[in-house]
């Protein structure tokens, strides 16, 4: 079967877009075919005489071209690795592998077609009435139903190439590049506005492209003017997919090389909706047979692609589009044997078939005509989606038999073209031009002075369904019979009807189905279409790939300046929030031992760090921390805990007094941004009169904790302008000085690990240098770098809790075992009322140290403590301590169990129960802190 140089191509058409000299080879269901450059998949198939292009989803009925546009539900194909390609829109490419979806084993002999024979039993919603018992078989039934699911295949492997998104900020966005859209764009641009014109087809022109010679000339002239205008940017094969709050608009650019499509996010001052009209199918028996086509499908096939869609045609029409289709068919040599015009009283009863395709038509006057092509022109649907998304409520124009914009249009949204009315080319252009001016005025001045000429739909017969039952939703296989039965059964509002029958839930999302569905329901209820209403129009207007929506990922990874050193020295990374940092360097237990006996350094740069400056900083500290800060001397450092107004612990850290009006605060790494916002919130909304400025210096300083008995000796080698002795620089103090020649470093003595330690904060640019210098000088001491895991073990040995691990979303201050820190005699501070009440009632879990009785058992964190069948607590932190050579834990337990010596049963994940003993202190190692204070 050839078809190359037009075995089914008619005579040359003045508007044809195919290049008869350039052929393309492609396969369809494994068979080779030829098409022309400019063809769509469907025009090429039709030119090759392929009449049956797919099978319907539910009943597996044979289907051919119906509406012949992007939305045609019969024209979905798998193309290479892409499912659900719209074959009547997608251009043919060399080597394309095209196949039908959801047929087995093939399009010709599809076993699913047995559904067709059972259709009287398998009405819409039949599955709700069956497969009920036996219950345990539902998964099996489910697998059977899934085999009939529509749609193509999606690949299991492969990454997508990220499609970059971009922004646009035009004054006026025109959705639709037909005559009205082009006219509006030109006049808005002439009035001085920047215009973005978006058209879903490959070229501007709208319905003019498949029109008469005059219409083609108008299209060409407009195209040239648009192309020449400096203030108009045109996108073709692009679609306005959604309109959101305040004219935030999504535009999808399709057909891009490498990436399939990409997203443009537009904030436009004004939006003009000019989408034209979508031709609506007519409901009658046989309306889904291959060979039944809408008039615009025929006009496209003939006038754009010079394809003969059949040999012997009958036309049923209610408007001039059917007449135009008849003329076009004759021009390419198709025998048009009868034209029946509803305006003259003609009526279409049914289409009949032979061997699964159209063979004839019956009319209401009793005549029967043989044919292989039935052209139907029953009317138009206004695609009002953009208006609905703008908050407009379109109204149904009874005389015109379609919806028009409602009176409540947002004043930054405009409509023109078929959405608003019908007319001569001049009238269409005039209305478009006026609306373009209006949109420009509104964008520039905030108000509109131009008045648009009167423009409304021509009268049209209400041709929705005939006297026989036919398919209403082609993709979901829902017939008017199904709709009526469902309505009579009580699913009689439009939303219930949609959900029960699934009508309008297919890939066209109602564009071809909703009006007929509503018309059928209205007739069942004895209501008008306006009274019945439609389902909700939702974005996106056309489906958008996940790839285009996702774009490129912008989740930055934060590293300290020393990260490269870690990775090249055996550091194994852990993802810690936004940061990547070393968990260990090969042996965390060994790191612990080395630190406790010698010295080690850990990179703690992710620690949240703020500089607080002003005369009222101590007031802020008193407000946000549970303890007291007014008397913190210059040079001193204090641990603090922050609670929320509900008394729940949400962060902790140490804060030091650098100088008269400067403090240095640290927070947890993951809490930093939240604490910053918290502090600013209270300053700005609660105490704007306070003199406090906060600077987030988390990234400005590289932070290193030098820990171990020899930490002072090591640091002394690098510091000469600060006396590091215990007398001059005691525990819980800070100093500022020069480290390894780097001035302006803060050092403080705190004790997360429980060893003598100095935490240094070095201007970040010198972080790596200071780190390497420490490692170099520390070699004599057998220094080790240590990571997060070693730090976790050591802090647990010291009984230091971690907010968010040993506390949770309901753990209030007095639960954490630091009662001494909470100063209820302070003036109002955040959390005080609830903490007072917690203190009085003694309520809430308690954090305690727990040692498993078997020192080798290390219970999994989150193991539950269950007594009398109820949960009385859980293990929050658990490790094997290399220092003590036994397991150690922290846990939250009910107050009754929080007594030293209590034995609690711990339920391990595998179900076994082990015993643990509640300890007196959280710390298992040096709980008096002698090592810290040395």
């Amino acid at each position, binding site marked *: 079967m050839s078809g190359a140089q037009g075995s089914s191509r008619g005579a040359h058409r003045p508007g044809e877009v195919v290049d008869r000299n350039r052929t393309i080879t492609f396969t369809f269901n494994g068979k080779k075919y030829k098409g022309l450059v400019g063809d769509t998949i469907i025009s090429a198939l039709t030119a090759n005489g392929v009449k049956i292009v797919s099978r319907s989803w539910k009943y597996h009925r044979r289907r051919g071209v119906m509406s012949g546009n992007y939305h045609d539900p019969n024209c979905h194909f798998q193309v290479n690795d*892409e*499912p659900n390609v719209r074959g009547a829109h997608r251009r043919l490419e060399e080597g394309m592998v095209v196949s039908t979806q959801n047929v087995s084993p093939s399009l010709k002999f599809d076993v699913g077609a047995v559904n067709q024979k059972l259709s009287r*039993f398998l009405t819409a919603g039949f*599955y*709700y*009435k*069956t*497969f*009920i018992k036996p*219950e345990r078989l*539902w998964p099996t039934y*489910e697998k059977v139903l*899934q085999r009939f*699911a*529509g*749609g193509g295949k*999606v*690949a*299991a492997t*492969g*990454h*997508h190439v990220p499609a970059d*998104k971009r922004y646009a900020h035009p004054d006026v966005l025109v959705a639709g590049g037909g005559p009205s859209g082009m006219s509006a764009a030109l006049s808005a641009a002439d009035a001085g506005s920047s215009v973005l014109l978006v058209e879903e087809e490959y070229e501007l022109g709208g319905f003019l492209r498949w029109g008469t010679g005059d219409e083609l000339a108008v299209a060409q002239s407009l195209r040239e003017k648009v192309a020449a205008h400096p203030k108009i940017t045109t996108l073709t094969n692009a679609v306005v997919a959604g309109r*959101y*709050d305040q004219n*935030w608009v999504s535009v999808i650019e399709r057909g891009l090389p490498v990436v399939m499509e990409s997203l443009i*996010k537009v904030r436009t001052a004004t939006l003009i909706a000019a989408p034209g009209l979508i031709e609506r199918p007519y409901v009658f028996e046989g309306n889904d047979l291959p060979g039944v086509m809408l008039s615009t499908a025929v006009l496209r096939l003939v006038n754009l692609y010079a394809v003969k869609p059949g040999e012997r045609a009958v036309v049923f029409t209610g408007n001039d589009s059917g007449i135009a289709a008849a003329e076009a068919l004759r021009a390419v040599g198709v025998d048009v044997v009868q034209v029946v015009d509803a305006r003259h009283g003609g009526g279409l009863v049914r289409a009949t078939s032979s061997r699964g395709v159209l063979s004839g038509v019956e009319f209401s006057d009793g005549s029967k005509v043989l044919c292989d092509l039935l052209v139907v022109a029953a009317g138009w649907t206004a695609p009002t989606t953009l208006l609905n998304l703008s908050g407009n409520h379109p109204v149904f124009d009874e005389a015109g038999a379609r919806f028009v914009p409602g009176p409540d249009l947002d004043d930054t949204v405009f409509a023109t073209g078929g959405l608003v009315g019908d007319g001569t080319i001049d009238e269409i252009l005039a209305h478009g031009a006026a609306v373009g001016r209006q949109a420009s005025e509104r964008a520039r001045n905030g108000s509109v002075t131009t008045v648009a000429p009167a423009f409304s739909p021509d009268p049209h017969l209400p041709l929705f369904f005939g006297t026989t039952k036919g398919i209403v939703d082609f993709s979901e296989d829902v017939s008017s019979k199904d709709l009526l*039965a469902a309505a*009579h059964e*009580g699913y009689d*509002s439009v*939303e*219930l009807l949609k*959900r*029960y029958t699934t009508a309008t839930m297919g890939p066209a*999302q109602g564009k071809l189905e909703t009006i007929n569905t509503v018309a059928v329901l209205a007739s069942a209820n004895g209501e008008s279409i306006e009274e019945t209403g439609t389902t909700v129009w*939702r*974005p996106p207007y056309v*489906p*958008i*790939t*996940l*790839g285009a*929506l*996702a*774009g490129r*990922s912008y989740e930055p*990874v934060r590293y300290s300046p020393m990260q490269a050193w870690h990775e090249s020295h055996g550091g194994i990374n*852990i993802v*810690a929030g936004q940061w990547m940092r070393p968990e260990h360097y090969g042996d965390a237990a060994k790191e612990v031992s080395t630190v406790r006996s010698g010295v080690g350094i850990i990179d703690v740069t992710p620690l949240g760090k703020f500089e607080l400056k002003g005369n009222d900083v101590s007031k802020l500290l008193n407000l946000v921390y549970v303890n007291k800060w007014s008397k913190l001397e210059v040079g001193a450092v204090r641990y603090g805990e922050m609670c929320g107004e509900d008394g729940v612990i949400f962060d902790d850290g140490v804060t030091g007094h650098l100088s008269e009006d400067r403090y240095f605060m640290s927070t947890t790494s993951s809490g930093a941004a939240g604490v910053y916002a918290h502090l600013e919130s209270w300053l700005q909304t609660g105490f704007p009169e306070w003199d406090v400025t906060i600077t987030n210096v988390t990234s400005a300083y590289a932070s290193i904790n030098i820990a171990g008995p020899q930490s002072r000796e090591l640091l002394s080698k690098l510091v000469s302008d600060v006396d590091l002795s215990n007398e001059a620089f005691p525990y819980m103090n800070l100093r500022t000085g020069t480290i390894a020649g780097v001035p302006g470093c803060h050092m403080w003595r705190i004790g997360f690990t429980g060893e003598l330690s100095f935490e240094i904060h070095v201007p970040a640019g010198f972080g790596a240098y200071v780190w390497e210098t420490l490692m170099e000088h520390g070699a004599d001491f057998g220094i080790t770098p240590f990571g997060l895991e070693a730090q976790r073990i050591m802090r647990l040995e010291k009984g230091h809790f971690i907010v*968010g*691990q040993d506390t*949770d979303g*309901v753990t209030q201050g007095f639960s954490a075992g630091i009662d001494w820190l909470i100063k209820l005699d302070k003036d109002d501070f955040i959390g005080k009322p*609830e903490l007072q009440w917690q203190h009085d009632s003694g309520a809430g879990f308690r954090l305690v140290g727990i040692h498993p009785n078997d020192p080798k058992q290390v219970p*999994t964190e*989150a193991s*539950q403590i269950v007594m009398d069948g109820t949960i009385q607590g859980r293990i929050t932190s658990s490790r094997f301590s290399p220092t003590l050579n036994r397991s150690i834990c922290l846990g939250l337990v009910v107050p009754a169990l929080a007594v030293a010596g209590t034995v609690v049963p711990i*339920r391990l*994940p595998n179900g076994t129960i082990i015993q643990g003993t509640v300890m007196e202190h959280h710390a298992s190692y040096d709980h008096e802190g002698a090592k810290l204070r040395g």
Partner: protein
Amino acid sequence: MSRNKPVKYSALGLFKRGLSGKEWPRVWRDVELKKTYDVVIIGAGVHGLSTAYYLAKNHGVKNVAVVDRAYVGGGGSGRNTAILRSNYLTPEGVRFYDRSVDLYRHLAADLNFNVMFAPRGHLTLAHNDGALRTMRWRAEVNKVQGIDSEVIGPEEIKKLVPYMDVSDETRYPILGALYHPPGGIIRHDAVNWGYARAADAMGVEIHQKTEVLGINTAGGKVTGVRTNRGDVSAPIVINCTAGWATLIADMAGVKLPIITHPLQAAVTEPVQMFLSSVVVSGSLHVYVSQTDRGELVFGASTDPYAAYSMRSSLEFTEELAGHVLELMPSISKMRVLRQWSGLCDITPDFSPIMGFTEVEGFLVDVGWGTYGFKAGPASGEAMAQLAATNKTPEIISAFDLARFEEGRLASERGAAAVGH
């Protein structure tokens, strides 16, 4: 007119009516609103309808009207992504949701309506050690209550979801997941219709397009409601609304600690089945499942600010797509077909508010956030019992309104927020 069981649905029935062409009777009657009822339930979603059903079935209370300003199941019950599970964090939450899942398992047979519960298996992914610890916490709490939950590693996840990227290459590599085999999906509309039909068969009246305009009280007791179709007197009025809970409660003079945020969802075009499990990622704020029609259904977190608009946003689908492709990078050519939105009533502790209020006879079953649909059956059963016996059933005692003032919050924050 009162019958007890609806006309039976069955394959045989389909066959017979297919042959004869005889139509099925209405799913629920279309009747006039009376002037008085024993109970008026506001909201014809799964909570309101199941409450009505269990009132009639378990307690013989049939003089009940369920009123809704729109159509049956038009609110959250018709907009959710229909995920069922019981792998919650708090013991009281676990007990409650598990009772609901258990009722769901037998619902099709009980209601004689195929609700299509498919126990596909539910995975909650953990992308950092904190999340993994929370998964372990949930698993252990679940096990104590006899619920099938366990923490599994990346290899086992890959076996369940071959399309998942479990490598180290992703921005937030998957460390493990909470695997809950009994969790799955259901056809939400069918549940709503099934309850409505069965309740109607027992005499309960369902009144659509009936908007409550006011609630009448006298001397601290509720006396009835005012609607756009007339006034109705009733000694018991139950607020089973979602999204409108505070607006309705305000009518009775009852303040609720609820804020309303939109929650969006989206669906793709259908493709051949490739995802059998329900996949949730708390860190990435996304959940996804594949329906029998072949469509992927997604959701994420609630919109970040309080609103009553059910308009969709673009940033929702952008973020969602980004996170889904992090999990399953090969599906980038799938297309989003439709997005929609509903309203969520959020409470301070992510647990519902059920039971008595300070107005006698005015009961609430509200505050269902993003987890209301899965709770439908158990809520209805418990609320029916509460309304019929005037005593709070133990299974919902932790969800009382008084807990906020008394400082007894039930914190499900870890499990509920973007858990679905």
